[in-house]
């Protein structure tokens, strides 16, 4: 894999994956006292056979290389508390001239094979770490001069699966060496705990939305889902759950009618009060689209007809892991929904040929050509740098000479040929890695990547106009949805929302675990319930931090730090649910502005055909054709009704919630 030569080409047999300097050996069973209290380096080492070891090396192994070590600097170094040991090069890299001193020092290296590690703990305020390969004895104790043992733990956790013991928060028990794919599969199995019965209810619900949107209020919706999630056991076997659905719908219908009339007379009062958002409905997540459902949705030729319904289901609960490979190709516009199996086969063949012809374009470039083609060379070198830094802790991309890195690189270079103007921009490897990991196939991954890039290409504009535009839209949404927070940010010089840059550029890839990012992305790919839903995800995350940011009076730097540190601490389902709740709040707010409508892809007031007549205005024909009892509600928010609006389920919900707002006002 010379093209993506990794860190260096030293003749080392094993490789330091992580090194922490400034670590003292405090105690070690079977070691003479003279060995103790010496300073050294604690490492995670990958051996030739891919097994891993925790190694501590005393600093005497480290000698100063007079060639590169400037003696002047060495003197100066003593100013720094830690410099006496932190300088120099490791003799280990100069293989072949090992002195006898060196050999004795070598014998003092402590090795703990990770396979044998049973438990470890961090004590004394992150200064001390102890390891054990036998229950009941702490064999080795290390002292971290910089008090940063937690960093070592964080990296160690990439290689072992641990659990914290109940009685002691600081003690970790090694469950098994970490093979993330195993962990993944297990978690997915755990996720699929919902019964088919439950899915049916959600499905019923979705079809209800489709058929009688006006009767399905948000309130009923959340009550229903409550039943689906929490009340199912009670109902189980006694009564058909869908009966429950009908009942609730009827109840909420009646309630709605009553409330609407009451509110109607107060219409102007309601509107004149200080514009606040309606209460946020809590909308639980659904179950992932199951394989059974997915196959059932296809006709005999393999066409998928209920596209909107499928998207609704995916929006609600994501996709079961076992069918992601298949479903993602549709979501990313590689496979058209209405294509038959036979047509898909032909398409795949065509796309495969197309891919390899583009790949050949750069593969067949001679060295001389490349030397005279600086623009290509620049792109290539960016790709190489990033491929080596993409998800390397994941087993799929870990280790040297990993063939998956070659594929990652090949796809990105082929994309350079596919879209030379855009070329390669940092962040793209982050976008591609999860696709390749899931699909495992170069051609599929490429075309799905193309589909994803089409959705977010503006993120990578040369002048970053797309990013700036989105950051502005985010700021506008936040101002509407969470004015208090938006105000705080503006006061703290953070109104440009630059601290959300990473979130938006790679669609939260750096903020979530691999498992969660798959869920988030597939939901976002449905483009439901509105345009720019990913901006509402940002709003949801920020809204959850609002109290901290404001009460602690965080300023410019603290805001950035706090937001950056949220990475890997976010709950994807909770955020999706909150974002959807915020969406309903926003679109049902009486003071909704055209600016927000445009961001969310809703029809604007000025474009609306119906006039804002009085509350006695006759119902529009659309309402009639839908045959609902929403007339009064329609009259009240008549200006919101638009032909386009009625075509999409997501938007239908938005109209309904206006009534809910009237209800709750």
């Amino acid at each position, binding site marked *: 894999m010379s093209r993506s030569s990794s860190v*260096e080409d030293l003749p080392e047999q094993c490789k330091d994956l992580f090194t922490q300097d400034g670590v003292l050996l405090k105690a070690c069973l079977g070691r003479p006292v003279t060995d103790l209290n010496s300073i050294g380096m604690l490492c995670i080492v990958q051996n030739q056979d891919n097994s891993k070891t925790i190694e501590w090396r005393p600093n005497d192994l480290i000698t100063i290389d007079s060639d590169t070590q400037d003696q002047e600097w060495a003197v100066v170094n003593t100013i720094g508390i830690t410099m006496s040991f932190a300088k120099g090069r490791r003799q280990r890299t100069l293989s072949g001239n090992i002195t006898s001193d060196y050999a004795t020092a070598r014998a003092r290296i402590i090795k703990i094979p990770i396979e044998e590690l049973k438990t470890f703990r961090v004590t004394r305020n992150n200064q001390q770490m102890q390891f054990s390969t036998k229950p009941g004895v702490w064999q080795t104790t290390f002292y971290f001069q910089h008090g940063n043992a937690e960093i070592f733990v964080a990296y160690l956790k990439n290689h072992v699966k641990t659990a914290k013991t109940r009685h002691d928060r600081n003690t970790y028990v090694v469950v098994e060496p970490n093979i993330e794919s195993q962990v993944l599969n297990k978690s997915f199995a755990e996720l699929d705990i919902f019964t088919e019965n439950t899915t049916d209810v959600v499905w019923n619900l979705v079809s209800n939305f489709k058929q009688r949107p006006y009767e399905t209020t948000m309130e009923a919706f959340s009550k229903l889902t409550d039943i689906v999630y929490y009340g199912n056991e009670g109902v189980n076997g006694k009564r058909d759950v869908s009966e429950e659905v009908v009942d609730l719908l009827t109840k909420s219908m009646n309630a709605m009618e009553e409330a609407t009339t009451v509110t109607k007379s107060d219409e102007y009062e309601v509107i004149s009060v200080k514009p606040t958002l309606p209460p946020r409905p809590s909308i639980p997540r659904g179950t992932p689209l199951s394989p059974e459902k997915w196959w059932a949705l296809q006709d005999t030729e393999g066409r998928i007809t209920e596209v909107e319904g499928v998207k609704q289901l995916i929006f609600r609960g994501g996709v079961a892991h076992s069918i992601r490979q298949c479903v993602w190709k549709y979501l990313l516009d590689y496979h058209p929904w209405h294509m038959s199996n036979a047509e898909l086969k032909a398409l795949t063949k065509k796309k495969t040929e197309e891919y390899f012809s583009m790949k050949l374009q750069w593969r067949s470039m001679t060295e001389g050509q490349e030397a005279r083609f600086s623009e290509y060379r620049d792109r290539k070198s*960016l790709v190489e740098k990033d491929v080596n830094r993409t998800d390397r802790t994941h087993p799929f991309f870990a280790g040297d000479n990993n063939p998956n890195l070659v594929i990652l690189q090949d796809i990105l270079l082929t994309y350079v040929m596919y879209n030379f103007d855009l070329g390669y921009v940092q962040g793209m490897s982050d976008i591609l890695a999860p696709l390749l990991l899931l699909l495992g196939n170069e051609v599929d991954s490429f075309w799905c990547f193309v589909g994803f890039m089409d959705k977010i290409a503006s993120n990578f504009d040369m002048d970053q106009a797309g990013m700036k535009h989105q950051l502005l839209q985010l700021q506008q949404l936040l101002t509407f949805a969470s004015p208090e927070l938006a105000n705080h940010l503006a006061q703290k010089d953070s109104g440009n929302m630059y601290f959300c840059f990473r979130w938006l550029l790679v669609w939260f890839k750096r903020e979530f675990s691999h498992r969660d990012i798959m869920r988030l992305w597939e939901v976002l790919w449905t483009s439901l319930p509105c345009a720019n839903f990913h901006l509402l995800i940002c709003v949801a995350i920020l809204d959850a931090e609002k109290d901290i940011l404001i009460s602690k009076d965080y300023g410019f730097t603290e805001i*950035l730090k706090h937001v950056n540190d949220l990475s890997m601490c976010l709950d994807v389902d909770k955020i999706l649910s909150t974002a959807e709740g915020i969406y309903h709040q926003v679109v049902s707010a009486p003071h909704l502005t055209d600016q927000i409508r445009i961001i969310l892809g809703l029809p604007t007031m000025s474009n609306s055909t119906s006039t804002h007549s009085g509350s006695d205005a006759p119902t529009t024909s659309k309402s009639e054709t839908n045959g609902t009892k929403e007339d009064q509600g329609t009259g009240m928010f008549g200006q919101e009704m638009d032909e386009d609006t009625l075509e999409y389920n997501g938007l239908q919900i938005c109209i309904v919630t206006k009534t809910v707002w009237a209800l709750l006002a």
Partner: protein
Amino acid sequence: MAKTYDYLFKLLLIGDSGVGKTSILFRFSEDAFNISFISTIGIDFKIRTIDLDGKKVKLQIWDTAGQERFRTITTAYYRGSMGIMLVYDVTNEKSFENIKNWIRNIEENASADVEKMILGNKCDLEAKRQVSKERGEQLAVEYQIKFIETSAKDSLNVESAFYTLARDIKAKMEKKQEASNPAGARSGAHQIRANEQQRKPTSWLSRCSLL
């Protein structure tokens, strides 16, 4: 909350993508090196408080994404920085050539009197070297900026580089304060006593790095 430091310096790391800015910062803030680093998207910073001539100096060091495209965003964070590390990779000619562009970038976006320093990183990779130490030194002379070769991997000169930059900023600050307020009797976190001027130990520096 009581201040636990005497000075707060905002520093900035800039340079082409992949030269090792994040690795240098990780080495300095955690004294560690991680082989599987990820590229920086956007911007982040780390804190380390050092002891400088009896003063606690809190360094807030900002790490930016190197790719040119992101510069419109990253330059927004240049404001208020007091010291800038310009980093290139000794195994990458292009990153060295680009130092000139980065200097221009600083001139356009940072305050005029910001302290600068050039770092030639990855000097542990002798076999792959493309830029000699002499060329680095020459460039530094040209721009009147201090220069040193570093290795984040082998922890070579990283510490010294930050100490040097911090010391220069401190000296400059003290000089400024002295000039603007020669009376001298002051107290408080960001103030210094006049007699500390004499303890400015920069002589060793002029010998080992260039000015």
